[in-house]
Each structure stands twice: as structure tokens, then as C-alpha cells.
């Protein structure tokens, strides 16, 4: 019985962790932040 409860508890914890981590891991924006060096910029926008 204790074993079963532990398994359920462990499974629950894993499920919570998965729920929290999934959005941050799979939807992380891995696109680069680019820096372009120019000799000058427009005086105004």
C-alpha cells in the first residue's frame, strides 16, 4: 500500500514538474539577438 502511495506521489510530482517546465523548455525563444555595426544612423526616426 505504502509502495503504491509512494508511486502515486512520485508520479504526481513528475506530472507537476512536467507541467511547469514544458512551456519554458519547448517554447524558449532560441533565436539570436543580432548586432549590426553601421557607420552611421539616420539623424531621426
Amino acid at each position, binding site marked *: 500500500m505504502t509502495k503504491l502511495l509512494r508511486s502515486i506521489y512520485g508520479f504526481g510530482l513528475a506530472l507537476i514538474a512536467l507541467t511547469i517546465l514544458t512551456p519554458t523548455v519547448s517554447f524558449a525563444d532560441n*533565436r539570436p539577438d*543580432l548586432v549590426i555595426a553601421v*557607420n*552611421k544612423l*539616420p539623424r531621426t526616426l
Partner: protein
Amino acid sequence: MRVHYSTFDTLIRRDFINPNQKSWPNLKPSLATSWKRISPTTLEVKLRKGVKFHNGETLTADDVVFTFSKERISGKKAVLKSGRRYFGHLKTVKKIDDHTVHFIAKKPDVALEQRLATYASWILNKKQWMQYKEEGTEWAKTAKPKKSKKKKKKKKKKKVKLTWMHYALKKIRFNPVGTGPLKFVSWKKNQYVKYEAHDDYFMGKPNFKSVTFKVVPETATRIAGLVSGEFDIIVDVPPDQFKVLNRYKDIDVRSVVIENTHMLVFTPIAKNLQDKRLRQALSLAIDRDKLRKTLWLNRNYTPKGHQLPTFGKMYNPDRKGYVFDSEKTKKLVKASGYDGTPI
């Protein structure tokens, strides 16, 4: 200027990467999906559906009509000073439905489609501008034009009547809203301008998160920064540096011929340039091919006079153009009686 091309879009896009250098420029759909002449003076333009501005608004014919309105671009008192150069001949821009617009010119204009592909045709968001109409109208009642810092010329300048659009322009100048892939974040004069990706961009989600254009005036510093990895891209690399950069396997050097013409303009004020023969001599003394080959490593060409092949049917390929003739130069200088005083 080139930064703004990625903030705003035009109805028709000129393909600079695949230019058609023997005929009209290669024009491609952009915010317009198609266009056709329905009369010598009327161009019908169909707009792309579902295009999003940076502020979340959806593009409609109202934005196009506003962009080309008389008070903004084509009228005598238009707020965009250079607008009349491009669109002063427009009679009206008419909304037919939410995604169809008619450009009606006063006279037939063979270059209208090309004008719609220039910087004067960046499409603006009407709603962003209109939010300043009420307070701008109040402001215009008392506002006076800024005094020019330049020395007063003899000719009296016409007084500019300020409108709510001048006010809106002041407000919007540091918050540009377009439909392009770059969405404005921040700007520091002569230092940097930062953009983030416009993920709703109609040509697809950009493959970068942000782009910062950083001012680095020295060529050597730009090159060193590219080699070290501080910069991802650098621009304005002199052709004599191409060989240096090509030594690095992870650096790709690319160039394209742009339609900039370097001109020597004679002033009628200079007394010793009054003689036509001396002006002709100055033109004949320039070895354009040598300059081109030395400065641009033969990557461009000497135009045949003040015209380019992309003028299409208006281009004259038989025109002789500029020549280099040192003997004729000497004769003309002598004949002009030029005494050697500085010009």
C-alpha cells in the same frame, strides 16, 4: 534610411537582390497582392488580407488612403516635404472596398508602380496618427514653425502653416509603427537603434529575436568586431578590404550594385566656370573607368550619361555617355582662356 526599409513596407516591392538590370526594376507584390491599369491614369491595387501592424492593427484600404492623403503627401501643404516630388501628380487615392484601392493620377504616369515601391510609399497606420488629431489641432492654433539655424538667404521663404499632422509627426517620430519585420524598441542618437522581431510579419516569423544597429564609424573597428564575433553583420566595407575578410572561413562577403550616381555639379556662381568649354574640359578630364576599377574593383559600371538601364523603355542604350579624352581636355582649357585661378 536602410534601417527603415525593414520597419515599413510598401505596396509593391522592388527586388534588389535579384535586380533586372536590363529593363524595368523587378517589381514584386508586398502589401499589395496584385495591381493593374484600368485606364491610362488609374491603377487598381488589391491589398493583402490579414497584415498586422506593430501595434496589432490590421491593414485596410483606409491606411493606404490616409498614407497618400493630400495633407500628408500629395497636396501643396503636405507634411511630408519630399512627398510632392513623388506624388504631386496624384488626383486622388480612392477606397473601393476594404482591400481595393484606386490610384488616380492627373496625367498618365508610366512610373507609378515604381513610385509605389519607393520610401515615399511606406504604408502607415491611420489609427496611430489619428489619435493625435484632436490635441494636434489645438497645438497647431498657437504653434510656430522652428526657426532655421541656417543663415538667412535673400529669398524669402514661404511661411509653413503648421497642422495637426506636424504634431503627430513629432510624436510618432520616436515610435514608428509599420508592418515590417523590425519592431522599434529604443534609440539613442548617434549610438544605436534597437528593434525586436515582429512575429506577426506577413512574410513569416523573423529568424531573429532582436536586432541592434550600432554606430561604429571606423571601418577597422567594424572589421575587427566582425572577426572577433562582437558583431554579426557589418556594412560599408570598402572593396579593398574584401580580400582580408575572405581569408576567414566563417565570414561571407556580399555586395550588390546600387543605383547611386556620383555627380560633379557645376555652379553657375563660379565666374571662371561660365565658359562652356571649361565645363566640358572638366568632364572630359575624368577617367571614370579607371576610378571605378580602382575604387570599386570593377564591380560596377559607368552609366551612359545621366540614365540607367532600369529606366526601361525610357533608357537609350545608344547614347554615347561620358568619355575620357585628355588631348581634347587640354585644347578646350586653352580655348576657354582659363588662367589657372582656383575654382
